[in-house]
């Protein structure tokens, strides 16, 4: 019996030791997986695309699409074939094979597939291991839609005087760099250091101004007359774009890891957030259907849609006011007039003058529209405000000074509000937000 007890103890001890060893192995394996050396997960593939919303009918058009997939040499990231599936005038779908060039796939849309009525398209990327990526993910059921400049009123601009920029009608805000209430932070500049100031601003419906002072982890709120009202804490210490709703703020961190946050405009409580999983996060704005995120040119995604994967929804160009630099370098615009009929405008610019970023396209009570876009050449950069009449005629072109280069949300230093364009501008010791009246008294 003593022999049996000894045997039992030894066996028990061995079992414990065996268990300890097995547990160590299992725990270490779990730890290794947690450290990222375990079973690989399929790489996320994003499509980086430049989606047009307007085109010249009867003219060939080149589209491009690249990918963002990490690690880029992984088998699942290799795109063997890229197709552009495009609607045909006969009502079917045609395929255009992409040619790899300049870091992306290029698709040449022949002139006969750009009828007056426009076309629809989506992208189909065939990757290794049988993986197919549609973009937008809705594919043929909700493709991108491209309208045309057919019937647009054409205006030629013979020359542009770069120095003929307007002075502001007034200054809405003048903010010094600092961290006190009513000041804004700035990161240090220097050799190989890009000094960054407030990253964005927006205007509330009551005219209040909201400035994304991310350096000091806050959004500062000012009354329409420029008086400091309060600060709202930001949930992240990153540069953000900013959009104001009724009682909420929407902020967006920029880049491929962008995240949209819904905040209480009163105290900054985080009411919700969602990662942007399509394209790269560029801009956030309040829209009739809810806040939306620009994830690439001409591609918007709902900010907080509760689906596993955001779909870059096609811009509803038939109903929206849109502008586009078209293939010959002209500025095209399209909007809906007061009678519901579409109105188009095409502005041909002087040689060497190029269309820049789109800041705002607004329809006006008289049936016209105001298009606010950058204009630039190799050494100049200004904001152009194109004021169109109800028949698409260019009524006026105002040149405004170059906006702030310190705002990291690069499509937001210029805002439209209540018939005026607001431009954030850099000053040595701070920033100013100047007001340029477009509609009404000047």
């Amino acid at each position, binding site marked *: 019996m003593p022999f049996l007890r000894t045997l039992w103890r030894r066996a*028990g001890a061995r079992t*414990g030791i065996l268990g*300890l060893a097995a547990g*160590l192995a299992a725990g270490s394996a*779990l730890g290794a997986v947690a450290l*990222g050396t375990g079973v690989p997960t399929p790489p996320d593939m994003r499509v980086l695309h430049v989606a047009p919303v307007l085109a010249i009918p009867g003219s060939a058009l080149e589209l491009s699409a690249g990918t*963002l997939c990490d690690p*880029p040499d992984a088998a699942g990231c290799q795109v063997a074939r890229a197709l552009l599936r495009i609607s045909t005038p006969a009502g079917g779908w045609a395929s255009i094979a992409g040619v790899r060039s300049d870091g992306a796939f290029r698709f040449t849309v022949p002139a006969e597939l750009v009828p007056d009525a426009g076309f629809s398209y989506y992208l189909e990327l065939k990757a290794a291991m049988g993986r197919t990526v549609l973009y937008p993910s809705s594919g043929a059921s909700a493709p991108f839609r491209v309208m045309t400049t057919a019937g647009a009123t054409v205006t030629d601009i013979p020359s542009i005087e770069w120095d003929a920029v307007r002075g502001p009608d007034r200054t809405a805000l003048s903010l010094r760099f600092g961290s006190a209430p009513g000041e804004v932070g700035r990161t240090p500049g220097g050799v190989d250091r890009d000094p960054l100031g407030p990253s964005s601003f927006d205007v509330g419906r009551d005219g209040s101004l909201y400035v994304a002072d991310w350096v000091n982890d806050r959004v500062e709120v000012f009354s329409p007359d420029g008086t400091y009202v309060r600060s709202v804490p930001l949930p992240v210490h990153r540069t953000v774009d900013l959009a104001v709703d009724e009682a909420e703020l929407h902020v967006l961190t*920029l880049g491929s890891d962008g995240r949209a946050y819904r905040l209480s405009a009163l105290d900054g409580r985080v009411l919700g957030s969602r990662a942007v999983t399509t394209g790269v996060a560029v801009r956030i704005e309040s829209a009739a259907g809810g806040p939306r995120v620009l994830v690439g040119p001409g591609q918007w995604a709902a900010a907080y849609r509760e689906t596993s994967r955001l779909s870059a929804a096609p811009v509803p160009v038939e109903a929206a006011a849109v502008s586009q630099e078209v293939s010959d370098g002209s500025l095209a615009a399209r909007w809906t007039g007061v009678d519901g009929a579409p109105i188009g405008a095409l502005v041909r610019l002087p040689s060497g003058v190029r269309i820049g970023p789109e800041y705002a396209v607004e329809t006006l009570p008289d049936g016209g529209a105001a298009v606010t876009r950058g204009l630039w050449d190799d050494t100049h950069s200004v904001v152009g405000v194109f004021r169109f009449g109800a028949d698409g005629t260019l009524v006026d072109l105002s040149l405004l000074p170059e906006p702030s280069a310190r705002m990291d949300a690069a499509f937001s230093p210029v805002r439209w509000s209540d018939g005026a364009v607001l431009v954030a501008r850099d000053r040595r010791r701070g920033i100013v937000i100047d007001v340029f009246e477009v509609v009404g008294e000047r």
Partner: protein
Amino acid sequence: MQRLVGGLVAGATIGLLAAQVLVWSGGGAGAATWADANCSGSGWSVGTWRRADAQSYAQRADREGYEWGGGCYKLNDRDDTPGVPDSSGEGADCSGFTFKSWALRNSYGASGFWYWQHEKNVHGPYSTADLYAPPSTAPFRTLPDKSYATTAYMDAFVYRTSAGGHIGMIYQEGSSGSDYIVEAKSDDVGTRIAYTTYRSQSAYRAIQRRDWTPDCYPKCA
């Protein structure tokens, strides 16, 4: 059976704790800085370097950190040293990231290609001052204009003033004065791919690495 289960639990706990300690220590105990513990990479001469190689190389640093004067990346899609600027932490600065992505040699003006592992803590000899106004002997040059017809992917936009300087490379060309840019932006923003407007900002110039190996290599007709 109870001892077996107990052993399993104890072992798993110890194993997981050991893994966590590795995470906290950055992979090496007793290191003076993050870079000391994590930057064991090296570099070597290579005969070719295509724009496509540079694009892939740069993409891998997306979402990583930024360090002024730095150059070392630990590729795990996060900033390993957030909020601690100038501490020998993770990442390159803008010119150092360009230097590595362009596979330049670590000798001022030297031509040829030198592959740098991401984990190699090297900045290279060029600042934005050199990149903004390169001497004729530099392995990069200023482009005559900023039009899309002139630039190609993995060319760069650079500015340099008394107040600051920055350089970002074209990951993929966009439209209307904007592009998908890959860049080491700042301590708080890190290294990223963003869609932004450098092309149309008046302060920026376009520059190009010299002597790219054609993308068609080794199957050029």
